[in-house]
């Protein structure tokens, strides 16, 4: 557990035990009137002095813990229960009434808690009970809002729909499916809210609207002490410190629950830097023994486990594989877009003549390397217009003026067949359709003079008819600019359509490398053959079951000694399981001959 969590729990334990046993242990001491010691300063006998009746303030602070904590918890409980009822109402009472409740909550939540507290304090009158009700009611809208947001997020999940279709009642859906799935964030928030309520209470009593004499909580003690702050400040600050400590106890505990996932994981030592090699001459992209390691909770994930390949000028190379094969990570590594703590290692990694391991190389790639990402919906900055986002490349790398760069952006949008490019350039990305955005993204790559285009699943997020247009556009761009293409896809047919050469990846390695036209017919690796056979096309034999690959993909945190595909391979023998095959003559398989 993290130190924050330990501190939080420890502090909370102390605060709760003081609240539980304080009045029993120090109750008498706190009420002893010592007329010879009125308003005394700190001494060995009275650590933080005495009040106007000569009562020991330290004891009183300890005794006040119970009332302060109980009031805070009571008010939090009121807020929480009301909040859950109001927040979950839309599930229970139907759409129309639910919407009414939600908008009422939205109006109420806009008012600061303290204002609501004051409002309710007027109605319930001054005093501990009134204050508890006031603070509790005032906190309800915020909880209702939170609860509503959480419920709405869970309600969109398909398992809620499935349960309703299966005839599960609304109440049972709430109890079995919704509440368990929102309990965790609710508890975290309630814990932190309890800390906040504690402070609010202290404030109310401090103002004289909360606990009334002869009862006292920390706020009341502070109010009493404030008058004498010039004489002895500890009388006011002492209970204040108690409030802060108790507030911290709740907040840190909540924090410890909430912040659990944000952790660092060790990667193990870096590898020996010895084997630096020279790039293949003439290649636009040359990679030797690329390894990418990502820290993960169950140990480092070896996403790419040593791959070597080149792309010649003007060539189109495809990388296929299933999710988790490391193909996208390879693309990001080659594009130089992976950042620590992800570790990228290679004997060399040279793109368009720039060694990516050298300083300054990145900036020079601005005009010679274009990257197209999978999801055009999220790859444009929603806060800026499309034209300036393209123009930025030329302004930044080619020193163009704002006007010239914008004109070039319009020209490039026209080049990727976007109608009315002048108008479109002035629009925001959300005004573009998915296909249009992907065109604009390709246009962005064309602002410079790309020698290599890296496209990571450029059509996966698009409709089938649009996919075709984007692939044709990529082919056209390549013809016009002579740029090479590295195309990443899970779709065998996309890669065979567009590429000259294909790399097949499995578990972070290239298992086979072959001309694209041979992929369907001349593949030698059992995985490649299974991958091709598993995908039905418009000529698939309808009378036979589809080929399937048995078993599950390799756990990426493990490094199997032998061939990673061996556990799923019908041909595997003991040798396969013991010794990892090298990529030789285009295939990494001991049994490729059989």
């Amino acid at each position, binding site marked *: 557990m993290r130190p924050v969590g330990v501190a939080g729990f420890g502090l909370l334990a102390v605060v709760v035990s003081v609240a539980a046993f304080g009045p029993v242990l120090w109750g008498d001491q706190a009420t002893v009137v010592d007329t010879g010691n009125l308003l005394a300063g700190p001494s060995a006998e009275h650590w933080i002095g005495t009040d106007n009746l000569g009562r020991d303030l330290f004891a009183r602070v300890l005794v006040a813990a119970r009332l302060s904590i109980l009031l805070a918890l009571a008010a939090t409980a009121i807020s929480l229960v009301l909040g859950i009822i109001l927040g979950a109402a839309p599930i229970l009472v139907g759409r129309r009434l639910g919407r009414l409740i939600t908008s009422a909550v939205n109006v109420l939540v806009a008012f*600061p808690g303290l204002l609501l507290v*004051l409002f309710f304090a007027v109605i319930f009158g001054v005093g501990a009970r009134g204050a508890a009700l006031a603070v509790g009611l005032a906190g309800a809208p915020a909880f209702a809002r939170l609860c509503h947001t959480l419920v709405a997020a869970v309600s969109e999940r398909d398992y809620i729909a499935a349960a309703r279709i299966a005839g599960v009642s609304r109440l049972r859906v709430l109890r079995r499916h919704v509440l368990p799935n929102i309990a965790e964030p609710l508890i975290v928030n309630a814990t932190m809210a309890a800390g906040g309520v504690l402070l609010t209470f202290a404030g109310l009593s401090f103002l004289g609207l909360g606990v009334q004499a002869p009862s006292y909580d920390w706020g009341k003690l502070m109010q009493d002490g404030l008058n004498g702050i010039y004489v002895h400040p500890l009388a006011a600050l002492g209970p204040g410190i108690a409030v802060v400590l108790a507030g911290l106890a709740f907040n*840190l505990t909540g924090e410890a629950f909430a912040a659990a996932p944000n952790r660092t994981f060790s990667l193990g030592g870096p590898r020996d830097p010895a084997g630096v090699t020279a790039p293949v001459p003439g290649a636009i992209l040359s990679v030797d023994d690329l390894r990418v390691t990502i820290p993960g909770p169950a140990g480092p994930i070896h996403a790419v486990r040593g791959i070597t390949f080149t792309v010649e000028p003007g060539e189109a190379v495809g990388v296929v594989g299933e999710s988790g094969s490391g193909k996208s990570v390879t693309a990001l590594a080659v594009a130089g877009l992976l950042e620590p703590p992800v570790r990228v290692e290679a004997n060399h990694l040279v793109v368009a003549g720039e060694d990516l391991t050298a300083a300054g190389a990145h900036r020079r790639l601005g005009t010679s390397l274009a990257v197209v990402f999978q999801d055009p919906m999220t790859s444009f900055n929603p806060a800026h217009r499309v034209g300036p986002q393209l123009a930025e490349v030329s302004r930044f790398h080619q020193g163009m003026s704002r006007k010239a760069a914008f004109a070039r952006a319009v020209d490039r949008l026209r080049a990727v067949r976007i109608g009315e490019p002048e108008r479109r350039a002035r629009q925001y990305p959300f005004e573009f359709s998915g296909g249009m955005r992907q065109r604009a993204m390709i246009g962005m790559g064309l602002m410079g003079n790309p020698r290599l285009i890296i496209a990571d699943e450029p059509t996966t997020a698009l409709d089938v008819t649009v996919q075709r247009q984007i692939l044709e556009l990529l082919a056209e761009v390549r013809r016009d600019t002579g740029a090479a293409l590295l195309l990443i896809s899970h779709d065998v047919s996309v890669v065979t359509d567009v590429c000259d050469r294909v790399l097949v990846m499995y578990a972070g390695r290239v298992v086979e490398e072959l001309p694209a036209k041979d992929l369907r017919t001349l593949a030698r690796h059992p995985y490649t053959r299974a991958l091709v056979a598993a995908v039905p096309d418009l000529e698939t034999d309808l009378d036979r079951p589809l080929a399937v690959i048995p078993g599950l993909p390799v756990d990426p945190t493990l490094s199997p000694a032998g061939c990673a595909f061996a556990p799923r391979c019908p041909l595997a023998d003991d040798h396969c399981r013991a010794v990892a095959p090298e990529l030789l003559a285009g295939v990494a398989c001991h049994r490729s001959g059989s």
Partner: protein
Amino acid sequence: MGHPLKSRWPRFALRRAGRLLVSLWVVVTASFLMIHLVPGDPVRAALGPTAPADLVLAHKEELGLLDPLWQQYAAFLGRLFQGELGASISTRLPVGETIAQRLPATAELAVAAFLLSVAVAVPIGVGMAVITRRGRGRRAELAFTGTNVVVAAIPDFLLGVGLVYLLAVQTNVFPVAGRAGLDSYVLPVLALAIGPAAVLSRIVRVEMLAVMEADYIRTARAKRLTPARVHLVHALPNAVTATLTIGGLLLSSLVAGTVLVENVFAWPGLGSSIVSSIVAKDYPLVQGTVLVYGVGVLLINTLVDVVLALLDPRSAIGES
């Protein structure tokens, strides 16, 4: 997609104005009902058990409490439209006058504290996000969150008390209380601003961290821009939306938070008058003050929404 865009602004204005009106009505009605929700006899409570019965009756008649509820409501609304808020029970002064006198002091305090907390929080939040993203800078993160949690756990009035003790009583750098010269603003504004600055800087950091993982930031990096440009031009504007939403809530809670701080510093604002009038059960004054606070909060929220819509055009259409 052309059509909804053309009618975006009028529809946004209509919807937002509608919400403002409904909320205003809620505030007005709530402040009207407040007196009637008080258990027992409010006037008797205000004047004390020793007040003669005919005086209580006279006050009730003056406040219109003897009429049927709907008539009182109508009269209340009618008076409100003429800017009439009634007279204080204890001082007999018109409530409107008292509020007009005290409001500027409160507003100054709240706005100054808000500007200070934003000016401090945004750079700190952005800086911390850049330093600590992707699990880097563990020490910096621990120090930041640690300080943040501690600061957020100190209530503003306690902070005020502490500041008074340190900078006014001990060292006499700033005045202890009251509203005189510029230096009298320093401590109250600090006391009000430090907590919200902590909360806001934390939100800025969280938002920046989330935005920096977005696909479009990867796109910006693929354009090989400098890190500063990526963070300030591409990430920050997108983090501002959520920051501003919270910032609006902060500003309105700052307005309310002045209540406590004003009491510490004997600041002649609305906050000190509302507390004394609640204790004195001076209901017309409480009613008027709650109304002013409520309307102020609503206006701030509306302003924030409009600014948001200008900054982020999606929020104007994506609301329904």
